[in-house]
């Protein structure tokens, strides 16, 4: 008899690969069926994604989009590893963005571009970290559900950012509520020979560093212990209050950094009511990557192509861009189901949990069998 727990690294990798890729495929198939039901052609859509996301120089646009997405992914992973569900990412991202688009034009006027960029990044991280304090402290002190508090703070952040863009950071030169445009010379430089800004390199480096810290240092081990069981963590002498605050601050700060990188690398200014909601898309991807920063990179690359190509492709297929949300939601659903079936298979158990068998099948059994159940 084989012992199911002893598996080689290659087998584990294969299982992880299957469990990560199957949900994506299933989600794309079901999304295609929904498109058919709505009278759009899924083939046109996916051909469009390929055309506008990869061919020509479009792959460079996809890689540029990856920069903020990968940093958001790292930020989410830091919190999720500790079982802290920081879902205030939209607000944190916009706060970081508004630091860049609001402070940027002022700073670039008074100091060298290199220095100003560094200052913007630091301020963005700090603003993001401070914004996460209320959810973190409520969670650490009273165990208040951080999902709710971080979400509510996110809605407040969206309002604050809009007030700032319409108020102090508004460009007096235009009538539309938006910040002043940062000149091309001050933006993040391109990687030589391409039109991909160096934010992409920053993002990849951050992912690799995070991977190392989380999997190869004592801090990473502490995060994992805390995530597995806060009680056990307290038992081995970890200060769980500080752990919650630190992880939340790191997570939120990184997501804010992603916002400022996006502005300084790509957009150069920010309009009021602009909310790309990158976090919504990235969140399922970090689950698929099993909270490993480097493993998240290929998934983010896949989504970046889908989003870059999908925006135009959706318009051509007569759909709204919000259809991407449906695809993301489907990936999440199929991920949980694939995980469930895989786990049941590994344990050699029935695919139906015992309680469900009783509830669903009992009325169909004969009375004699029922007594033994």
């Amino acid at each position: 008899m084989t012992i199911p727990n002893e598996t080689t690294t290659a087998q584990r990798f294969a299982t992880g690969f299957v469990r990560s890729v199957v949900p994506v495929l299933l989600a794309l198939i079901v999304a295609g069926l929904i498109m058919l039901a709505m009278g759009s052609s899924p083939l046109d859509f996916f051909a469009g994604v390929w055309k506008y996301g990869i061919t020509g120089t479009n792959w460079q646009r996809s890689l540029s989009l990856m920069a903020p997405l990968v940093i958001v992914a790292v930020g989410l992973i830091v919190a999720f590893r500790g079982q802290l569900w920081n879902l205030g990412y939209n607000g944190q991202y916009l706060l970081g963005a508004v630091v860049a688009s609001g402070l940027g034009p002022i700073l670039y006027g008074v100091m060298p571009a290199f220095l100003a960029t560094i200052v913007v990044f630091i301020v963005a991280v700090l603003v993001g970290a401070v914004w996460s304090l209320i959810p973190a402290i409520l969670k650490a002190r009273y165990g208040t559900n951080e999902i709710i508090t971080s979400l509510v703070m996110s809605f407040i952040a969206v309002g604050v950012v809009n007030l700032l863009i319409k108020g102090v950071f508004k460009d007096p030169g235009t009538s539309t509520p938006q910040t002043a445009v940062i000149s091309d010379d001050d933006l993040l430089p391109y990687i030589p020979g391409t039109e991909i800004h160096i934010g992409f390199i920053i993002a990849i480096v951050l992912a690799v560093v995070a991977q190392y810290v989380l999997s190869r240092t004592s801090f990473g081990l502490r995060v994992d212990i805390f995530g597995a069981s806060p009680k056990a963590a307290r038992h081995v002498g970890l200060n769980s209050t500080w752990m919650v605050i630190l992880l939340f601050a790191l997570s939120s700060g990184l997501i804010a950094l992603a916002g400022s990188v996006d502005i300084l690398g790509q957009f150069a200014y920010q309009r009021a009511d602009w909310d790309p909601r990158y976090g919504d898309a990235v969140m399922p991807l970090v689950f698929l990557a099993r909270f490993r920063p480097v493993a998240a990179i290929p998934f983010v690359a896949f989504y970046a192509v889908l989003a870059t190509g999908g925006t135009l492709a959706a318009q051509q297929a007569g759909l709204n861009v919000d259809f991407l949300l449906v695809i993301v939601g489907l990936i999440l659903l199929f991920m949980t189901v694939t995980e469930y079936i895989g786990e049941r298979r590994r344990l050699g158990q029935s695919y139906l949990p015992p309680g469900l068998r009783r509830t669903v099948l009992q009325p169909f059994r004969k009375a004699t069998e029922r007594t033994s159940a």
Partner: protein
Amino acid sequence: MSDMLTAAFVTVFIATVISQAMPLMLAAVGETIGEQAGVLNLGIEGVMLIGAYTGFVVTLTTGDFWIGMLAGAVGGIVANLAMLVLNVWLGLNQIVIGLAVTLIGEGITSVLYLQNYTTSPTSLGAQPKLAIPGLGDIPVIGPSLFQQSGIFWVCIILILGLAFGLARTNWGLSTRSAGQKPSSLDAAGGNVMRTRSIAVLLSGALVGLGGAYLALLTTATFSPMLTNGLGFIAIVITMLSRGRILVVMITSLVYGLAVAIGPALQVIGFTVPADIIKMLPFIIVIVMLIVFARSSVVPPALGTPYTRGAR
């Protein structure tokens, strides 16, 4: 300024408070029933939108608000089926499923609406008012409170009935025990999974009704992301109310007050930026969370799938 506080002004103010509070109240009562049975539904933002959209479409095609509300409830039940099968039956991660339902609800309603209704005008118009004889003639509170649509009264009676049911009936006792200590419900001969299944479907119906109320009566139209975080506010209110439906009703009215104050200030002459008006309910919610942080208690078995014999 005092001459602005006329009877007409107060009447409109009270009516606004009620029309803003009702969708939240229905959704929060739905979430309360689910949570009391031990199922945390983070997807109610999506469920509300699906209820709102189905209610909107059905009302537009049939012209009947009652059938529209019913369709909203059915839409909510269908949307909650994902929660029922994946979370209650299979015991999968409630956070992931809840967010999936929210994203799919937001995405699909937005896509369908923009595909079908952007070209034609889509206001549903006002609902016929049902004046209560006698009470409806009282100045100020008469026209604002006692001349509501019949749907309002049915919803209020439904909520009060559920408040009674949850606190005083056998059904309520089993539902609460499924969230407090499922093993004791099992030992007493109850069926945890069936109790939770019924609670989740009922919860879906109420959240869907909340969404439909928002679309049909509060705004009289649908737009993408219509709820704008209302589902999450409902979850907060549920957490703070600790399963007492009367408290849910009161906190929902406080929320309605917060929303109605902005436009009212504008009538009086203060100009408040729209962004602050949009933020105000969330600020009040976070302040409530900070002040009452200690008392936000959830059922012990919330979100844990029940397996007989498992520790």
